[in-house]
């Protein structure tokens, strides 16, 4: 008897609690910036593609859902000619982001990727590349290291001396 009354009371009390359920999709849940959701390819502060097609994300991927193919511009800067992620296989583990040496590939707090047709889960580079820096601001791989490319010569990266003259006497 007491137990029944207690149960009724508890249920009644919940009627005045703050609502946990939100009216999705009109109302969105908060996802932290570090949330591992949809994968994007970002650009460096100068607007250039950050990805240097090093294939490290692809090899780090435990489900092998990343495929890319490198290409080169006329100044020797390498970029992915093709970049494909099969999100129907992706487990959002974030290994690709960890493996990326240039902050190019990032997981962003976007989970709205449901599709009726699995084929629509295959994203090409045009679907992945965004016009921004994503979560990591200010980093430009080629300013720090890497090869000489258009706009950056030998010895112009961080911590580098200017090129030496092998014909010098000292």
């Amino acid at each position, binding site marked *: 008897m007491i137990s029944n009354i207690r149960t009724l009371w508890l249920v009644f009390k919940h009627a005045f609690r703050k609502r946990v359920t939100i009216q999705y999709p009109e109302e969105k849940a908060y996802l932290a910036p570090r949330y591992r959701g949809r994968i994007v390819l970002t650009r460096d502060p100068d607007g250039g593609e950050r990805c240097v097609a090093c294939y490290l994300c692809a090899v780090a991927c435990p489900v*092998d859902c990343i495929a890319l193919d490198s290409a*080169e511009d006329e100044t020797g800067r390498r970029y992915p000619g093709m970049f*494909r992620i099969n999100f129907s296989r992706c487990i959002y583990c974030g290994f690709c982001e960890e493996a990326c040496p240039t902050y190019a590939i990032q997981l962003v707090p976007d989970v709205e990727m449901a599709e009726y047709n699995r084929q629509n889960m*295959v994203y090409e580079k045009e679907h992945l590349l965004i016009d921004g820096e994503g979560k990591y601001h200010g980093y430009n791989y080629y300013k720090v290291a890497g090869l000489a490319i258009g706009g950056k010569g*030998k010895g112009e990266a961080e911590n580098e001396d200017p090129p030496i003259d092998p014909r010098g006497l000292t």
Partner: protein
Amino acid sequence: MATIHIDGKSYDADPGKNLLQVSLSLGFDLPYFCWHPALGSVGACRQCAVRQYRNEEDKDGQIVMACMVPAADGTRISIEDEEARQFRKSVIEWLMTNHPHDCPVCDEGGECHLQDMTVMAGHAYRRFRYRKRTFTNQDLGPFINHEMNRCIQCYRCVRYYKDYAGGRDLDAFASHNHVYFGRSVDGTLESEFSGNLVEVCPTGVFTDKTLKHHYTRKWDLQSGPSVCAHCGLGCNTLAGARYGGVRRILNRYNHEVNGYFLCDRGRYGYEFVNRPSRIRHPLLHTDASDTDTLSKPESCSPEEALRQARDRLRNARRVIGIGSPRASLESNYALRAFVGEDYFFNGLPSAESHLVTLAAEILRNGSAETPSLREIEGADAVLVLGEDLTQTAPRMALAVRQSIMRAPEEKARAVGVPPWNDRAVRDVIQAERGPLIVAAVDETRLDDAATSVIYRAPDDIARFGFAVARAINADAPPVEGLSDEETDLVQRTAKTLSAAKYPVVISGVSLGNEAILQASANIAWALDREQKPVGLSFVVPEANSVGIALLDSAPLRGAFELVSSGKADAAIILENDLYRRTHALDVEKFFTGLRTVVALDSLRSPTTDRAHVVFPAGTFAESDGTFVNNEGRAQRFFQVLSPEGDVAESWRWLGRLQSGSAPSDEPRWKNLDEVLDAMAAELPDVAGAKDAAPRADFRVAGARLPRSPRRFSGRTAILANLDVHEPKPPDDPDSPLTFSMEGTAAMPPAALVSHYWAPGWNSVQALNKFQDEVGGANRGGAPGVRLIEPEKPIHSYFTKIPDAFSPHDGKFVVLGLHHIFGSEELSRHAPALAERIPEPYIAIGDADARARGVTEGRELVLRIFGREYKLPACVRPNLPRGVLGVPFGLPGLTGIVFPADGHLLE
């Protein structure tokens, strides 16, 4: 056998080796940079430090460089010693002070010896806070990319390039941490073996420029054991493919054949596989034979093409088959089985067919064994008759270049310097080189290494050879009328060859001179009669020249006659562009006489344009088959990638063509093993080809062998754009390999090695784990089976000695001068290699040029068989009088049968 003690345990070791070699052979992981099995030790990088103890009581010992200490009996070392470990770690740390932080954009990344050694030595954190030195790079031509910042100054590149390969234009400049490896000025590396720098360099200073343009990491390359298709030596290669194209060629170690190195034609010729001019689908040509302007061929389905071809062939009076020395043994056999023995032709002009058959005949029935390239490297005297080896059989030229070290090495050994101690050996022998005698028509790239060189017309080279044979053995036929200079060289050569422990005589078919082959055979037999060991090696032009010679079939002429006499009116042409073989007019006439032409080829050619039905044949990368190299070694090559479009092996097409027309009818051969079995039953001469590699049902622990590396990436995304459901990997009924990463990780037999990798060893140096001992034989023996072994009969000398060559007024002997880049049919379609193809020219001797007032570059008109060739003159100081040369096989110069009679028109 010596006993050495490593970290308290005893091992057997070869006292002729150094401790580094022995430790690696025993399976220890000891880091190294400057040492290379083919280059020996110099002790420069200080990376292979170990602690050596004087005796059992000695507890202190001293740090020594393992590569500089012989594995003498009783040697006690510790690899695990803490101080030695710290030493190795510090050395790496110093090397890394200047190494750039660019692995993500470095083509060596993932297969970098420096990465491997850094991990192995345990260096992980950078403590050095100062700036890195940088260099500017050089443009080294279409093959090699230069990135000097990455250099760790191990000196391997110049030691390989200058000391090993005889190059002159790569050197070390400047001093201390400014040491720079490059050319004195920007420019293409001259050596024909420059591509090996890619594998020799332990880091990313020299990388493959063709790979750079379609870059793929090592772990993503689906690779297969392959055999180079670009000359007759049959070097073993590893071809790597991704996204349906071949992306690079690496050396595949075959202890007996190519060892560690390839030539640039073999390494960079692969790009023809990816050309847009490839035939990917069957083509139908309706009015091919009756118009000069050919209608555009239309592609059709395989079923339609097979139906049309079957109908046409069924209605033919007689079908003839034309084989090819660039098609596999299996494809040639399949065609022979289709058309019958009497109607199968080898597709060669009569002269070349005769020469190649003669070469095989001499090797089979003579008493001299034909050496492998490794044995040529071990020869202490070499005589080259009439071949410009660097152009016709490049890897053999590199082997000959090593042979000149054998005689002087003995001198070093006598003073106690072992051959692996490279610097010390070179200090002992200084500029002394072993005997290499070259008789050629013009300068060759081996002249700088030769002790004697003479330049003569082909007949005079043969006479020189006959005279050498006579000087060795008095039963050999005599040669009259030699000059004093020649007689002197003949005597010296005979003496040198007789005195050598293992002399090798090399000649070949490139000059189209029968007497040269016979002369070299006489020399070898003369030495044999004198109870001397000898090797006799013939250079043949194409990957399967010897294979087709062993099939024992008639030359092209026979096919032409059958057609012109009206006995045959249909032909199947297998991977052969007849317009390259003989005079265009003859070929034209042949095609006009045919009512049906069926061609199988990989690239479009004038011949495929004349065919009514063209089947897309697989290149080396899309086929399984066997090539027989110049020493008669049958070597299997396997598919690297599953063919795109309707491409299939020629033997497979021919098998389908022979089946009934109902869709349920099975082809004559279901897989490669069935072709090989049928061939072995019918043709005992080539039956051994069956054993060149394990059969398709071969398994290791019940599993197949993977073509893809274990960390192959993108499996679920590569084809996801076509269908999100991953397809099953293609089946492979022809080999024990799979088109996936699934299969055993166990060590495969040498003929099935698809990639070199071992735990901790991602670079090509992982090869160490695939050898019996480092630098030694392949585990389980070198791949391939020798089909030719001499029968040791009593032979009689060749006695038909040509007359001395005398130039005729106005009439010249025109020779085809071979070029490593351009003379070979397939490789010249590779864009990088095409950049190195010379412009066509007419080579004229200095004497003739002066007599006619010809200057360098002047336009000459040369008439050969009624055709006129207008080309600039190239004046050669050494080309004999009465002899002209034009580059062999270049576009516009095909279809000339060399040697030809030519007239210079004023």
